[in-house]
């Protein structure tokens, strides 16, 4: 995808470029016998946005994606693409393309035949279909490899062929089902940036399934976190990380220390929360007075081993692991064991050292409502 910059100058044999479309789920449920895979889910993907469906395996995210594609039919509810009801349309009749986890490249066809497959089954002449395919292949930087069989390409190249094949019909919506799971860790970071760049430059509506929260945070405009067949929370990456709506999201997105606190009083948007003998000012997020749970990110906890201040929260470092860019600690305190990450070039604190603990309140500490 190194030629993305030249996209606007490429000739376009098709008519006017199609507008990106929205995707809307209205109370969609999917059952297999007694098992409910997706339970009364509603959401909207705005045109031109990249939205990630994130969740642990078995949460229903892939089923949701396959329902957008038309590979599974909703048991109940309505699915709209670009404002049009497609609930009962088969996959072949929807203007949606998908990049599969296994890439699903047809092994008996060459790279060019694979990419040209979409237009050619639509009745486009072979010559035009090949032309369209070549255009997309050059877009993703695979020109020169079109005669090869898919099995003769590397994993990353196969993945790009799959993307080219999905793009060739210029679908209203493009779907990715864990597209990076078969790539090695280094390549993964590059490919996900390529996908994001492609999506933004072509102004595509993309639904993207992953179980990797870091990947989701990196590429998405919007994230839909799913758990047990339901939506746990939707929001921008930063919202999810800093203001988790419930325990599940707090735990699933990034690491979080869940600790108990006492909401003492509410004043305007802020609340006074006491943790042990510390006191914090935090947005109240509609929590009531009394015991509340707080999500504290590991990097929002500051350790100070120099001089324990009387009255502050104290603890003892139990374990320290040095990971290059960061040092991770397990600290034993009166409010439970805490997982702490310190960035920056500091000497690691030796296990057994007593430390005093404080929180950064600007970000990284949040009350979890209804928990």
């Amino acid at each position: 995808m190194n030629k993305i910059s030249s996209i606007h100058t490429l000739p376009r044999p098709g008519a006017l470029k199609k507008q990106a479309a929205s995707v809307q789920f209205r109370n969609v449920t999917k059952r297999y016998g007694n098992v409910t895979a997706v339970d009364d889910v509603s959401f909207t993907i705005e045109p031109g946005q990249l939205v990630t469906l994130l969740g642990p395996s078995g949460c229903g995210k892939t089923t949701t994606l396959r329902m957008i594609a038309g590979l599974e039919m909703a048991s109940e509810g309505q699915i709209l693409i670009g404002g049009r009801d497609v609930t009962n349309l088969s996959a072949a009749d929807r203007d949606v393309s998908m990049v599969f986890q296994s890439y699903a490249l047809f092994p008996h066809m060459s790279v060019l035949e694979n990419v040209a497959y979409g237009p050619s089954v639509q009745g486009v002449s072979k010559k035009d279909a090949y032309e369209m395919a070549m255009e997309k292949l050059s877009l993703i930087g695979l020109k020169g490899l079109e005669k090869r069989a898919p099995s003769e390409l590397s994993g990353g190249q196969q993945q790009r062929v799959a993307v080219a094949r999905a793009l060739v019909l210029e679908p209203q919506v493009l779907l990715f089902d864990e597209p990076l799971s078969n790539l090695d860790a280094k390549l993964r970071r590059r490919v996900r940036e390529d996908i994001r760049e492609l999506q933004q430059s072509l102004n595509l509506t993309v639904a993207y399934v992953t179980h990797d929260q870091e990947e989701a945070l990196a590429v998405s405009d919007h994230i839909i976190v799913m758990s047990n067949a339901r939506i746990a929370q939707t929001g921008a990456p930063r919202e999810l990380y800093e203001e988790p709506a419930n325990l599940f999201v707090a735990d699933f997105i990034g690491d979080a220390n869940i600790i108990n606190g006492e909401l003492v009083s509410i004043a305007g948007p802020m609340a006074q929360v006491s943790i042990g003998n510390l006191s914090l000012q935090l947005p109240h997020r509609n929590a009531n007075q009394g015991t509340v749970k707080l999500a504290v990110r590991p990097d929002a906890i500051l350790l100070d081993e120099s001089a324990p201040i009387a009255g502050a929260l104290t603890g003892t470092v139990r374990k320290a692991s040095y990971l290059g860019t960061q040092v991770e600690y397990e600290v034993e305190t009166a409010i439970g064991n805490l997982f702490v990450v310190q960035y920056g070039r500091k000497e690691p604190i030796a296990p057994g050292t007593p430390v005093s603990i404080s929180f950064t309140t600007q970000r990284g500490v949040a009350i979890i409502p209804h928990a």
Partner: protein
Amino acid sequence: MSRATLGWIVLSWVGFALLPWYGFDRTAVLTLTDYFVSGSALIHGLGGAWWLLPILVPLCMALAPVFRPAAQTNGNWLIASGLLGLALIVVQGFSIGLNGWMLDILRGLFGEPGPSQAGMGYGAALTATAFLIVLCHGLAAHGWCRGDAFVTSSIGVVIALIAVFVFFPVTTILASAFADNSGNFAPFEFFGKFMDRSIWGLDCLSSNLRCGVAWNTLFLGLLVGVGTTALGLAFALIATRTEFRFKKLLRVMSVLPIITPPFVIGLALILLFGRSGALSNVLWEWFGVPRSRWIYGLPGVLIAQLLAFTPIAFLVLIGVVQGISPTLEEASQTLRAKSWTTFWTVTLPLMRPGLANAFLLGFVESLADFGNPLVLGGNYEVLSTKIFFAVVGAQQDQGRAAVLSIILLAFTLGAFWLQHAWLGKKVYTTVTGKGDAGIPLPLPRRVALASYFTAIPWASFTVAVYAVIVVGAFVRSMGRDYTPTLEHFLTAFRVESSDSGFYFSGSAWDSFFATVKVAALSAPLTAAIGLLTAYLLTRQRFSGQRAFEFGTLLSFAIPGTVVGVSYILAFNVPPIEITGTGFILVMCFVFRNMPVGVRSGIATLSQIDKSLDEASLTLGAGSSTTMRRIVLPLLRPAIVASLVYSFVRAMTAVSAVIFLVTAEYNMATTYIVGRVEAGEFGLAIAYSTVLILVMLLAIVAIQLAVGERRLGRRSASTAPSPVAVQAVP
């Protein structure tokens, strides 16, 4: 509304208003107008056959969506039209027969004899099909099977075919078992026939009399099951775990019986051990052993079936032996077990399900075998031959044939049920996705010796039997006169050239051409329906899928003789009257051999990533395009397997077709059986060798025609095509 739906609605009208409603090709030469308009249901209906007119109602209902293409209720109209149309056709077909009313109630209500009609023809078939597909399109419009009309139609068509050609005959045979010979319900007669002494008698235990035919059959089946399993295991162990030099030969020998017509081995045994057999002569002249008829009866049938079915056990067990992870044996050895202990406590127990499988296959094969007992049985009667003689013999007792068929069917279904219930749940698979670096242990000495001592004599015996087959075809009379001759081939396959071109004057040509024609027609049909079914079973999800699978595999468990009897009982009278045509032979083969297509299709499809189909779907290709451009090219090995299998089976089958052949459509096998009964062994053997040769050529031709699947570089390492090893009742 799609163009396809519209097309089928038009076809339903064509079938009703233009094509002849009755009869396939019974009447004399028809003129074109006879053929088109005047024989149609519409003309018949207006001219007195009033019962055909109600079908106009669903035909008109199907038009509603045509004129209001945008209406939301179109799906409902199509469903209603299809259901009503099918129901009307079935009801009128089953209530009015050749001799008037078919049901007692109707006779009582409207008096005898009532209107009469012949069997359904092209028009009826087309209209019924069109109604079925209109119904399926309607269901698709309701979102069934992801709204895919191709899938719903395929399911509908396969279900309809199985209903007509498997369930309908089986029900007919059940019904006929409970009826007396004039067709009235008579349950007591059933019990009389069922408990008959000739079936269940145990006289052979207490006196010199014969035992019941059911016990005979079971006893033979058990012996054959045990024998084939033991021999198959010996061969499999030699082939996988020893340094035996002639392993290739074992492979060839395992294929031979598949392309040998089932009774040919029996025939060869007669030529060797019969009263004037080659070996009997030698024994008499050199050692003074008197000639006798010992080969006719249990010993002969047993030897013939062991020869015929050991290769099947071998093919099953070689997979099982190879499937045992050598690491397990190595683990046993590192725990200080000697090689004999390891074999006895690890290897053999792991093989147990495979052994049980091989045993059940041998058992079922023996039960279903018809050719060998017919040729060699003598006084030892088994169910399959007894059924045959109940139908064609002097007694002509259809009810008795039906009762015997039910007993045989119960035995085979019981065996299959056992296999399914007992083996289906146990998982002894020891081959996993992980690499297995172990090296298989060499066999313990005793086991190796035991294997050699069983396998080698048996292998040489098999070679001898096949040598007899080849030699027998080229000598005047095996055992008496060893003058080399081509006489047998000339009698059978003489071609004379006359003024008007070549004239096939040999006595075998008619049956030969008929056989090739039927086999060539049924093979592609079998493959198509079998693979379509496999596709539906592996790639689609719909309610009732288990029942669907059971239905498609059921015909496999039905012994050929039972199929033959049930087909003549079911298809000899309207509404579906097709006995005596080549069509019934083709359909018989299609549904007997389809399960192999299904199995090999399932095996291959489950190796192909499902997301390939899905990728094609999301790129806008419909299911039928996906099937054609993605699934079929990748299915080539399965296509070859099922084409070869169904062609070969159609060439060699004897049990079912012996009931269905006519003078016009005589099959090669039944012709040969006739020659054997007439004592013309030389001719029979010569014809059999020609058949074997033709089948070898056909297999090569099919390989070339279908071709290899292209998988880029990977083709070098793809798994060998899954040749189905199946029980073949």
